[in-house]
């Protein structure tokens, strides 16, 4: 846009104005639905009315005071943490492997590892149920964590492969040349430099598991993760507790994202 403004034709002004008006409407479409949830979560009544007639914090009290909501949340945190640790550990090793020494194979291997992204979660759920029911793993929290690890892996690998490709591998080679073992070089030189990629990968893995409904629905029996509890709640007794839970989740996401964006300055698109 190096043109002096005076050289712009009226038609260009018009098309530029239309483009920005259209774009702001699309932004509104993206964000407005999330904002709607905030007033609902503070509503005084139990009807889904917007704007609410009166305001209160009773739905937050309902959430924090309910054993079943808290249990579901804790279970999701447990499953998400285990899936995050496993997928980041395996994904980090995998990304290290394909960014060095495997030039000819790395493309094909990356495609194999990204395959879980295109398989519909309902198909994966039915497959895993059949496998786990023969192994007696249906209804165990670690069964869900293992299945979630598979679903988290592609995101972790995308983020870490991008991070490692930008990283200058000569630094690691130099450390080895100076007498460090490969392991020490990776731990002391490589990992600190790609720390922000590792954190982004961990965050993506955690929310992938924390939000996952369908697999958790099929693989849990009597107990439920937070998404399952939310799904049942929306289906059966839609009350503003779900809005309170939603607001808590949105606040959590915004805080973490803000921190990550500050660390990753200007590389936001990588985290997509």
């Amino acid at each position, binding site marked *: 846009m190096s043109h002096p403004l005076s050289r712009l034709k009226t038609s260009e002004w018009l098309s530029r104005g239309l*483009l920005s008006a259209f*774009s702001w409407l*699309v932004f509104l479409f993206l964000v407005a639905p999330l904002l709607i949830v905030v007033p609902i979560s503070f509503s005084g009544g139990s009807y889904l009315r917007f704007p609410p007639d009166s305001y209160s914090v009773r739905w937050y009290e309902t959430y924090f005071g309910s054993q079943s909501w808290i249990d579901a949340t804790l279970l999701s945190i447990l499953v998400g943490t285990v899936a995050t640790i496993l997928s980041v550990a395996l994904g980090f090793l995998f990304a290290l492997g394909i960014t060095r020494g495997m030039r000819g194979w790395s493309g094909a291997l990356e495609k194999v590892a990204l395959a879980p992204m295109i398989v519909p979660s309902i*198909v994966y759920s039915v497959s895993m149920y059949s496998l786990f029911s023969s192994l007696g793993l249906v209804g165990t929290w670690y069964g869900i964590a293992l299945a979630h690890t598979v679903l988290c892996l592609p995101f972790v690998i995308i983020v870490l492969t991008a991070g490692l490709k930008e990283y200058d591998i000569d630094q690691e080679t130099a450390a080895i040349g100076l007498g460090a073992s490969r392991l020490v070089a990776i731990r002391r030189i490589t990992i600190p430099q790609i720390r922000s990629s590792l954190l982004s990968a961990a965050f993506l893995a955690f929310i992938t598991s924390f*939000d996952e409904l369908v697999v958790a629905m099929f693989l849990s029996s009597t107990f439920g993760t937070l998404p399952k509890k939310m799904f049942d709640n929306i289906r059966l007794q839609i009350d503003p507790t779900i809005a309170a839970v939603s607001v808590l989740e949105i606040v959590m996401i915004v805080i973490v994202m803000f921190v990550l964006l500050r660390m990753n300055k200007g590389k936001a*698109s990588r985290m997509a």
Partner: protein
Amino acid sequence: MNARFQAIKARTSSLALVSPALVLLGLLFFYPILLLFFTTLEGENIGNYAQVVNSGASMQVFLNTLRIAVIVTVVDLVLAYPLAIYISRLSPTGKAIALFLVLIPLWTSQLVRTYAWMVLLGRQGPINNTLIWLGVIDAPIRLANSEFAVVAGMTHIMLPYMLLPIYNSVSKIDNSLFDAARGLGAGAFSTFTRVLMPLSIQGVLAGVSLVLVLSLGVFIMPALLGGGRVPVIALLIEQQAGSFLNWAMAGTLSAILMVIVIITFLVIKFATRMLVRGRIDVASA
């Protein structure tokens, strides 16, 4: 000799690095899916395929799913392309804010976003209230529990998946190309068809492929925003497995869905390869 030994050593250690993830994927991803696939071909299970194909109702559900996925993809493309161009022309700070606004919905739970649409489209929701206030309607109309609601919710949820790949390819285009096109006398339309489109087609097709594939398997939005009126394959599979405990039929339907998804994915991949190669041929001619 030493160099060759080093290369072999490096390859072996890389193999050791990639194998834990590959073993996990093999055991807990490829094996169960192949197992499901082969189970549907065994013994009397194979009759389920004929049953699905001969049943008008099931075929209707497949067509319905495909139709909804195509509508969502087209609407998202129309919304995302101009937005991607707009964002790519913003200042660095503007870009960061814009991407922040795109990523928040992307990272927010799909259940939360679906719930938000239930509120938005509810009888006493903001859209109905506004329409009444404007005098367009007298009484609340049914917006939720309809195909419209499902499409609206899905369009919202899938938009970032369309936008980000398009933005990635649009933002890589050198801005001076547009100045050059204008300088050579190209109007807005021919700049679009001859500069912007060919240079961003890869991102567009990546976005289309992602949204189509994700939309084909979607479960949450039809279940919660459709109110039982919007049959899609994922709901049919869940019903067969969860309500009728007919796991064999659930398996057959899953296998068919999987094949449709893979075909869709490969067709777009092939189209991308053809178009990108065509572009290079034109450029070098």
